[in-house]
């Protein structure tokens, strides 16, 4: 079994998980122009952008003789939960004999879930599996912690220097074997970053932007035109509504996502029912960011995303009621870098200008 998986966010986490379980893992390629073009060519026209990117990644992986793909499932109503089934059809139609293992919630189909887990577990004992999961979760938490720091410091320092540290850190985390390694590397890089702490100005002079939206485009820098770096470039700090840790807490470990539930509750004012994806919790996050004193919200969504179209429809009202500017950006294969940059720059200028006038 030669395994691989879709590329999203800190891929090192999934790789580590499968590797520690003793599988032969192929690292998926990072989405680039070639992969996106390939995906667009073989996907339905109105499929959402993440679907197309993943199609491209899978096709690229076929060149590396991968025979099994592992992906997450879901029970709707967002389309993402059905990606696996459709990708299977597309790949089979193109003549690839490949298996796609979809990890669905055990609530949907207990037997299938058990079988999938048994296969992924391989020869490891349950005790080992427990240890691996703990290590990987620790790793995710640490990665997110460092990244949050990076997203603040990059606003006040040379982009290259901070990015270098961040990249080195990720590189080094590839080598970890146990939780002790994680701790050691974490301290090393947090210390490195701490040297820049004095560059953070006084509270009144800090500007913060919250990024909300569909999880794939929020997490995956290579397809969202490095929006965080763009915002940082203008001296604004960034925080996202989604980190991988949150997703794990919400979906895998029970009873750990209490705070996230509370945030989602705030969103009920605008979207009453659960409409899938993160639409409702995004509205909650927007309100939460405002309460935390953020200066603006950037709302990212892939073209044609079903749940986020609803949240975009109500976002204007939210912006008015909570007095927080919201910029919605649609991401797809035709989104140009300069377009995003111009819109972000204008948005941030507007926030600064508004603030300046209020002070006067």
């Amino acid at each position, binding site marked *: 079994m030669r395994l691989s998986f879709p590329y999203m966010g800190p891929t090192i986490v999934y790789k580590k998980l499968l590797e520690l379980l003793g599988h032969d893992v192929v690292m998926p390629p990072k989405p680039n122009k070639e992969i996106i073009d390939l995906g667009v060519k073989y996907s339905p026209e109105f499929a959402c952008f993440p679907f197309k990117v993943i199609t491209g990644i899978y096709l690229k992986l076929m060149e590396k003789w991968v025979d099994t793909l592992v992906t997450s499932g879901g029970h709707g109503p967002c389309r993402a939960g059905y990606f696996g089934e459709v990708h299977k*059809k597309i790949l089979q139609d193109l003549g690839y004999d490949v298996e796609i293992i979809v990890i669905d919630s055990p609530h949907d189909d207990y037997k299938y879930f058990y079988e999938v887990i048994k296969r992924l577990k391989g020869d490891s004992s349950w005790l080992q599996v427990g240890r691996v999961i703990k290590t990987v979760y620790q790793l995710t938490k640490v990665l997110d912690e460092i990244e949050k720091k990076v997203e603040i410091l990059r606003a006040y320092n040379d982009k290259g220097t901070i990015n270098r540290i961040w990249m080195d850190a990720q590189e080094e985390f590839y080598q970890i074997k146990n939780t002790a390694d994680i701790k050691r590397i974490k301290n090393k890089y947090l210390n490195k970053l701490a040297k820049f702490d004095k560059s953070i100005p006084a509270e009144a002079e800090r500007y913060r932007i919250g990024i909300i939206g569909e999880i794939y485009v929020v997490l995956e820098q290579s397809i969202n035109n490095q929006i965080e770096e763009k915002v940082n470039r203008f001296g604004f700090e960034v925080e996202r509504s989604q980190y991988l840790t949150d997703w794990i807490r919400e979906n895998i470990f029970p009873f750990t996502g209490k705070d996230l539930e509370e945030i989602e509750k705030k969103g009920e004012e605008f979207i009453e029912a659960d409409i899938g994806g993160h639409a409702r919790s995004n509205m909650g996050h927007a309100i939460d960011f405002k309460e935390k004193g953020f200066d603006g919200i950037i709302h990212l969504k892939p073209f044609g995303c079903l749940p986020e179209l609803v949240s975009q*429809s109500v976002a204007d009202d939210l912006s008015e009621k909570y007095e927080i500017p919201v910029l919605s950006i649609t991401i797809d294969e035709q989104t140009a870098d300069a377009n995003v940059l111009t819109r972000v720059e204008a948005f941030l200028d507007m926030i600064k200008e508004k603030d300046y006038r209020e002070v006067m």
Partner: protein
Amino acid sequence: MSKMKIGIPRALLYYYYFPFWIKLFDELNLEPVISDNTSRELLDKGVKNSLSEICVPIKVMIGHVLNLDQKDVDYIFLPRFHSIRKGVVFCPKIIGLPDMVRHSLPRLQAEIISDQIDSKSDNIAQLSNHQQLAEILSIPKHKMKKALKEASNFWQRYRNLLYQGYLINDFSRIEDLEVLEKLISKFENEKKLPQSQRKDIETPGNEKIVDIALIGYGYNLSDQYLNMDILNKLKEMGVRVHTFSMAAAEIIEKELAKLRKPMFWEFTNKLYGAAEHYLKNEQVDGVIYLTAFGCGPDSILGQILEVDAKEYDKAFMTLRIDEQTGESHIITRIEAFIDLLRLKKENN
């Protein structure tokens, strides 16, 4: 005292449930007001007041809501369809529709009644699905129960006729309850079969009759403005049209049971089951898949059907409609498709 006016937008699930609602409001002594047929002006308003990349059916819906608001209705009836089958829900945009209307059309005069619909079957006549309605209009429980029962029976008769092969279009232009009742009784006692089942339909130039399965949601198939009246155009060409609403529930169940994981969306599943049934059916010559711009579930279903059609060696065409579709474009494409199928049939 004059009757309370309650507006029903002629869009989305209206086409599937309108006899139920018209009968229900009549029983409750309310005056149902139905928005006008879709027109250029109405659609333009909808387009203007919604996001540009949202799907056409939602734009149409927004247009109808605005149209109702101009008719001085007291309430707009916009139930939040959540689920009518265990484990299966509706498209996110349909579930979130009341939120979208509330927060993106702030100048709406009429109050919106948006009961959440959660039912185990297509029959939505449970009391729990109409609590907000009962509360806002202070309707006593027993009266509500009785009205729901009447409406449900009436809707069942309509649904049965659809199973027998009548098209939603045969009814959907009627707004008056009495006329509708008469028509339903007439069809129930009719000796002549509906067009889709009849053997002896006329074709221009006495050519062979072609059987087409037209796969698409009720609101796309039946909105004559939006789809350029495709149903009648096909009929004129001597085509027997089969739609998802004619496929028996058991057939759809059987097809869905073959999937490891059915899709998440109610009507998409219905379309899937019906389409698979028609793809296998020898009598059907070709499948036209009618989809609207920006429809998310359709992008998934379309891909599956396209691959399956290849497998079953059945002629398959996707026809996408949007707010700018030109009539000649639709005619050219269906004419070419039908001509080819007819040629194939006559050569055999």
